[in-house]
């Protein structure tokens, strides 16, 4: 292929970065790795890359800080953040800072590749983030007021236990609402659910005790 796709990988863990490079090369992408946010800022060219996989937890400048700085100069590079498993608050922050999606480590390879491909498409579509899938909006309509509340809590990055405390219901009940939500929204994972909610403009619920 003459028109190759270049993917940046920013991760401080040598093995994770090296293995991602190997995998993406095997998938036919061009890859360039950076061991830190600083290295990326110094040697990377956001305008020439097609997509970027960014680790959020790094020494020095972390992924969120990098996102913040990038948003100003290069809004066209779609960035997918890599978070620890179940680190929803971090993922939510990253999405608010303009990441197109997030994947949880250790990730399912197919999920990751699908995420990259859809990020590339969104780049091709010039990041038309305003175009929300009408199906998502339709599904949102089906939620009960309580389910909607739980969703807003989840978007705020709270655990079942915290959601329960906020809403004055048991974590078990939250779990039931949550699985209903996933079903109605046809979300395969919590990550997907949160992404759809953010895309659809659902605002995270404020905390009743401490501000988020």
């Amino acid at each position, binding site marked *: 292929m003459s028109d190759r796709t270049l993917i940046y990988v920013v991760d401080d*863990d040598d093995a994770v970065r090296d*293995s991602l490079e190997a995998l993406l090369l095997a998938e036919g992408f061009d890859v360039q790795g950076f061991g830190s946010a600083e290295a990326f800022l110094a040697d990377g060219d956001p305008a020439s890359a097609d997509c970027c996989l960014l680790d959020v937890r790094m*020494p020095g400048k972390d992924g969120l800080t990098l996102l913040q700085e990038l948003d100003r100069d290069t809004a066209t590079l779609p960035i997918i953040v890599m978070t620890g498993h179940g680190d929803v608050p971090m993922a939510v922050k990253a999405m608010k800072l303009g990441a197109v999606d997030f994947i949880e480590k250790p*990730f399912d390879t197919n999920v990751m590749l699908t995420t990259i491909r859809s990020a590339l498409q969104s780049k091709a579509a010039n990041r038309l983030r305003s175009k929300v899938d009408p199906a998502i909006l339709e599904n949102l309509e089906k939620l009960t007021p309580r389910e909607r509340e739980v969703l807003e809590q989840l978007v705020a990055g709270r655990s079942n236990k915290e959601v329960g405390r906020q809403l004055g219901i048991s974590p078990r009940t939250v779990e039931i609402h949550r699985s209903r939500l996933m079903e109605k929204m046809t979300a395969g994972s919590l990550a997907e659910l949160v992404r759809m909610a953010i895309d659809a403009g659902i605002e995270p619920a404020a905390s009743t005790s401490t501000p988020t």
Partner: protein
Amino acid sequence: MEDGIKSDGASSPTADDEALAEREALLRSIIETSPNGLITIDECGQILSFNPAAETMFGYQADDVIGKNVNCLMPAPYRNEHDAYIERYLKTGEKRIIGIGREVIAQRKNGEVFPVDLAVGEIRLADRRQFAGFIRDNSARRAAEQSVHTLRSELLHVSRLSELGEMASALAHELNQPLTAIINYLEACHRLLERDENADHRQTGRLMQKASDQARRAAQIIQQLRKFITKGETEHKFEPVNSVIREAAELAMVGSRQLAVTTEFDLAAGLPDIMIDRVQIQQVVMNLVRNSVEALADVEDRMLTVRTHQTADAAVQIDVIDAGPGLPDEVAQRLFQPFVTTKPGGIGIGLSICKGIVDAHGGRLWTTANPEGGTAFHISLPIDRNRRAPHV
């Protein structure tokens, strides 16, 4: 009391008999009501008397055992050797237990073996000798000691678990890194081979090798954890201080990489091995290092020093020094008391447990202000206490 009886008895011959009877009654009462077992034997080891406390303790009636060899009250191998003990004493006069007393092992009628304190007195009569044994049953005291011991080691185990509980998400992250890499490497191989049967074998081989390196990395993390949460009996052995300390500090630093703490190890060469319980001392060091890392979260210069050296008073000293904000005075003074904490979620038992561990090692745990700002914790462990292992 005895003097009183004597002076009474000196007045008349009938009074003498009366005094003798009185004294015998007193003696009998003492023997009968003594909470300790009292057994007398002759020079051949034959039981002459067996008081009620001994009956209760051993489960024999006096009539069952009087006339029998006293060795029926002890388990093998003492049972077979006791006659020889008496014989040796009669021949040499060398006292090994008479007038000294010590803990020995006895055996009840039902076969149960139990620890007793035994004191032996010698009674010299005109033509022969008798021996009186005073016996105290130690099994209850032992059981109590054992249960304190067990409780303590349970507490230490639970506190190690809770320490790890607090680190759970950091540890999960640390394991996810190699797991992520393994999946990526293997998936890359898979894809290369699937696309092209004649794929470069050296290339796929290299990827597989890298995957197995990462698997080892994950295994190593788990191994460290297992060592740390091991529940086994406390075990005191001679241990190389530096590697014990380094391992613990590295485990404590797991997951704090993104905090970008610079850790400097300044470990003295040529330290003697010291008698410690490795896991417990590692628990102390982990706790101190984790405290320091937390203290560093809010400062710019995140510098942590772990140092070992030998002191003039024949001890090995371990210092954990951070450049954090330091301890407020009122906390510093009560630092090692339980339930004193500066952490929002803490219950404040970490350092009091640490102090308990170090004390049990005959050592000292204290804190000073780091002259360059921050806090220094010091552990001093004596080198020369090698003869006996401490009971923790």
